[in-house]
């Protein structure tokens, strides 16, 4: 078999690439394979992402029958589990809460860790004016969640949101 890249030399390197959940077989000669490995990095497509989508896709095909994860969906940006496994990218800040628990093990394999140890960021670092705006926004977000919880008759969660709102409002009045 000839190398699919140069179409001159005999293909001696055979590999299967799982990219974005699609399986592709490649046949290359030694020279072209070595070149591709170097140049592959030149493109913006980090091999990491390929690895992640590959792992997720492999996990999916192993599941027998209906996969309950197909119903998982990020409430903020609408990213579905199927889309996430295909593109291997987050759609918003809340995706980490939705998909994070599903990829913890993969993150460990990719990064060698699943916990951030570097520079930290807290709301305390915000300027006072922006911080107040931020807290106001948090209250609005909590009110929405409270409404949703009441609608779903999840009263335990509703009570939690109510208390959090109260605490934030009390803090605001205290600051004012």
């Amino acid at each position: 078999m000839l190398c699919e890249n140069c179409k001159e030399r005999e293909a001696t390197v055979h590999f299967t690439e799982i990219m974005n959940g699609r399986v592709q077989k490649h046949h290359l000669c030694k020279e072209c394979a070595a070149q591709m490995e170097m140049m592959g990095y030149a493109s913006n497509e980090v091999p990491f992402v390929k690895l992640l989508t590959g792992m997720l896709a492999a996990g999916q095909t192993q599941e027998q029958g209906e996969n309950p994860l197909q119903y998982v969906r990020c409430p903020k940006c609408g990213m579905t589990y199927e889309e996430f496994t295909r593109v291997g990218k987050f759609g918003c800040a809340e995706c980490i809460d939705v998909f994070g628990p599903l990829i913890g093990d993969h993150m460990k394999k990719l990064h060698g860790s699943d916990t951030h140890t570097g520079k930290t960021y807290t709301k305390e670092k915000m300027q006072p004016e922006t911080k107040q705006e931020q807290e106001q926004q948090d209250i609005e977000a909590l009110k929405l969640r409270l409404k949703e919880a009441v609608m779903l008759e999840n009263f335990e969660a509703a009570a939690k949101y109510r208390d959090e709102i109260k605490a934030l409002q009390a803090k605001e009045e205290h600051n004012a």
Partner: protein
Amino acid sequence: MLRWFEQNGPEGDVVISSRVRLARNLKDYNFSLKLDTPDAHKMIGEAAQKLRVLPEFKDFHEYHFENLEEVQREAMKERHVISPFLLSQSVAGGFVSSNEDLSIMLNEEDHIRIQAYRAGMDMERAYEAADHIDDCIGAVLPYAYDTQYGYLTTCPSNVGTGMRVSYMCHLPALAWNNKIQGIAAEIGRFGLVMHSVYSDGNKSAGDIYQISNQITLGVTEKELIENITNIVQQIVTQERILRNRLKEKQKISVLDGIYRSYGILKYARKVSLKDGLVLLSQLRLGLAEGLVKTPDERDYAIYQLMIGIQPGNLEMLASQELTEEETDVMRAQFIRENLPSIE
């Protein structure tokens, strides 16, 4: 004020630049993949409005893609002010410091990309600059941050520190000895990746390589910098050993190559991009090793010519669209006008 690519920094014989890039997202907007055009405009507008009033941004130049010609954006990419990803966006903006060593890109793969360059091997100072700007931005715009996963990014490969650290190195001796692929495989074991900055088809042109970290989670910024710096120092040593061997064993052939390259650069009337890079690589080696000298041994950073001969920059100079042949003619003229004289 000289820009980073117009000067030779520490270990400048081999290391061209040190670059730190931080990826940050705003908590309240969807990330790029799920950000529609109206929201992208809104995000850029809000970020720009908050940033342009900061004292740190006083001397920064603010740009928005809708006000830039395509060739201007291309030239910015060639000078590494903006990334190839930003260039591919239809809606984008940002801020650049006057000497272009700091760049803040808005609506890249992440909402905010902070980039700091320094000439030569000087990663600590590049990080200090990026870190300071990060603090300033984080104080006025709420970042997406998770206690477990750190700074949240579009790509899971960037979460944690959101930091990518890259050294750009000139490695002609390693390349001529076919050592590059071996090194690339070797440093992979340390979570690093190497790629050729300029390539012609499947081959590298100009022997310029970039070495970056891949892992961003579970390591501190300091550890990341120490790890990559340590490895790059070893690569620098190997390159120097091979350069010395070349100078000892093949001095005349090496000198001949450098002077021939100089001759073509000085007198050719048409130069392709690939030839330009290959010839300038020879000259850079000659100057770095003291095999050829500028008058008064004045320091001259060849890398600025490698940027200067890129097509976007040449088109900017010509102030008109150029055909491929016209570009080659323009390139030869640019080189003649900017080439340092050697003794």
